[in-house]
C-alpha cells in the first residue's frame, strides 16, 4: 500500500462502496459527537486525506492501552482506520525485533520527516535513564529524537498524558508526561486507564479528517472530553433529586441511584464513558454499579480514596480536584465545609507508609 494514496483511493481499492464509506462517516460523526448533518463534510475530508505514517512508542506502561485498542473486538470502524494508517513502528505489535525494529523506526522517520504522527503510551522516567530503555536508548532520548520530526504527538493513556500511575506519589522514577517534556509540537492527550478503544481510533480519525482537534485546557479533544461523566450520566436525575446509594447493597444501590456518596468521581471527570460506553456500547462502570474512578483526570491515583465522596477532602488536594468543575462541585463544596473538622482530624492522624516501613513489616 502506497503512503501517497488518499483514504478514498485506499477504501475503493479494498472494494468498499460509497454506501459503505458513508456508513463509516455516519458512525464517525456519531463517534466524534458531531451532528449527523456533518457527514458530507467528513466524507469530503476523509476522501482526500493522505495515509499517514505512525510511529508508536511505549515507555513506562502496562500495555493496557494497546490491549484496549487491539481487544476492541475487531470493530470495523477501528479496523478501517488502522488499515488506512501506516503503523511503521510499534514494538509490542511488530514482528521485527532488535536492530530490524529500530531500522524500521529510523527509515519511517527519514522518509516521513515532519509529516509522521507520533503516538506515545506510558510515562517517561526522568530519574535514572536506566529505569526504562528500548534498544539501549533511554525513553527521554527516544522521545526527543522521534518527536523532533513529528507533525503532531498523540499521548495515549493517562501515563503519557499526565504521568499516570508511575507518577503517583512517591514517583520513584521521576515519571513525567509527554507534554512535560515537549512544548514545541502539538500534543493531543487521550487519557484514560485505559482510554476507550473507539476514542483512540476516533482521535486518529479526527486528526486525519480535520487536523488538530479542538482541545480543552488539558489538551484533550473536546469531542470526547468536553463533558463530565456526571453531565452525561443517566443516573444524574437521581443526584438532582438527592437519591444516593449509601452502600453497595442497600436499596439505593439496587434501584440504581446516584453513586456520588460511594466515591463516584463523575462530577470532576471528563470522558466519553457515559455516552460511548465500553465493550461496543454495552455498559460503563457506573451502569455496572461501580463509581467512576476518575482515571482520565491528572493524578487520579493520588486523589484520595476511590470510595470516598468528592466532598470528603484528602490531606493533599490534588490537581484532579482543582480541575474539576460541574454541578457536583457546588454540592461538594457545601459538604466539604461540613466536613472540615473531619479533614483536620484525618490529617492529624494520617500516617504515611514508606517502603522502609513495608520492608520492616516483611522482616517481622
Amino acid at each position: 500500500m502506497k503512503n501517497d494514496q488518499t483514504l478514498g483511493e485506499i477504501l475503493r481499492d479494498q472494494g468498499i462502496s460509497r454506501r459503505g464509506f458513508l456508513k463509516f462517516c455516519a458512525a464517525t460523526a456519531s463517534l466524534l459527537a458531531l451532528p449527523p448533518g456533518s457527514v458530507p463534510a467528513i466524507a469530503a475530508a476523509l476522501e482526500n486525506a493522505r495515509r499517514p505514517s505512525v510511529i508508536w512508542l511505549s515507555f513506562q506502561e502496562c500495555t493496557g492501552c494497546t490491549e484496549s485498542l487491539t481487544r476492541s473486538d475487531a470493530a470495523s470502524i477501528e479496523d478501517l482506520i488502522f488499515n488506512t494508517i501506516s503503523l511503521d513502528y510499534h514494538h509490542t505489535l511488530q514482528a521485527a525485533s532488535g536492530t530490524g525494529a529500530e531500522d524500521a523506526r529510523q527509515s519511517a522517520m527519514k522518509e516521513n520527516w515532519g509529516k509522521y504522527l507520533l503516538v506515545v503510551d506510558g510515562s517517561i522516567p526522568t530519574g535514572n535513564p536506566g529505569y526504562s530503555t528500548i534498544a539501549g536508548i533511554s525513553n527521554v532520548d527516544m522521545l526527543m529524537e522521534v518527536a523532533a520530526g513529528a507533525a503532531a504527538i498523540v499521548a495515549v493513556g493517562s501515563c503519557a498524558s499526565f504521568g499516570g500511575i508511575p507518577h503517583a506519589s512517591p514517583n520513584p522514577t521521576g515519571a513525567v508526561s509527554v507534554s512535560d517534556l515537549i512544548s514545541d509540537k502539538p500534543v493531543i492527550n487521550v487519557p484514560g486507564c485505559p482510554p476507550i478503544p473507539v476514542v483512540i481510533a476516533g482521535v486518529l480519525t479526527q486528526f486525519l479528517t480535520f487536523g488538530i482537534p479542538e482541545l480543552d485546557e488539558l489538551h484533550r479533544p473536546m469531542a470526547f472530553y468536553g463533558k463530565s461523566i456526571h453531565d452525561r450520566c443517566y443516573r444524574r436525575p437521581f443526584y438532582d433529586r438527592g437519591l444516593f446509594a449509601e452502600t453497595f447493597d442497600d436499596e439505593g444501590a439496587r434501584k440504581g441511584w446516584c453513586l456520588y456518596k460511594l466515591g463516584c468521581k463523575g462530577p470532576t471527570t471528563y470522558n466519553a464513558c457515559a455516552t460511548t460506553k465500553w465493550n461496543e456500547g454495552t455498559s460503563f462502570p457506573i451502569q455496572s454499579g461501580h463509581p467512576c474512578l476518575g482515571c482520565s483526570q491528572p493524578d487520579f491515583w493520588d486523589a484520595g480514596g476511590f470510595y470516598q465522596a468528592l466532598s470528603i477532602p484528602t490531606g493533599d488536594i490534588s490537581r484532579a480536584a482543582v480541575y474539576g468543575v460541574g454541578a457536583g462541585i457546588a454540592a461538594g463544596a457545601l459538604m466539604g465545609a461540613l466536613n472540615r473538622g473531619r479533614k483536620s482530624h484525618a490529617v492529624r492522624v494520617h500516617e504515611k507508609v514508606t517502603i522502609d516501613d513495608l520492608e520492616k513489616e516483611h522482616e517481622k
Partner: protein
Amino acid sequence: MAESTLAELEIEVGDIGTHNVIPLLHEIRHALAQLLEEGKETVIDLRSIPLAPGEEAAIEQALGEGEMQAVLSALGPSDFRESSYPGVWLVTHYNHDDKIVGKFVEVAIVPSLLRSQPEDMAAGLRRLEARLMEDGGNQGE
C-alpha cells in the same frame, strides 16, 4: 448452568430515568412536520443522548413497527425499519461482528443510504460497459 446474555439479566434501574424519551418523541414530531411542510430531512443520533437502560427500548416501542424494512450489506449489515409513523425510520448500523456502531432516527421519505450513490452507479456503469465490450468481443470471434 446455561449461559445467559446481558439482555436476559434483569437489572432494576429505578423508575426515574432521564426523562429524555418524551422530549425525543416531540423532536421527532417536529422533524416529521418539517419534512411534510418543507421537505427538510432530519437525522437524530440516539447515541448522543443520555438514556437510562431500557429507555432506548422504550423509544423503539413508542415508534412501533411500520410497513417497510430493508437491509444494507456494506462494512457489516445496516438495518432500516420504518416506524408506525411513515417517514420516521430507525436506522441501526452494525459492524462485521454484528456489534452496533451507530443508531439513528432518520426522518425522511427514504433514508439517504438506501438510495443508490452516484459514485457506485458510475462504477457499476463502467463494469457493465466493460462486460458488454468483452462479451461483444467474444461474440465477434
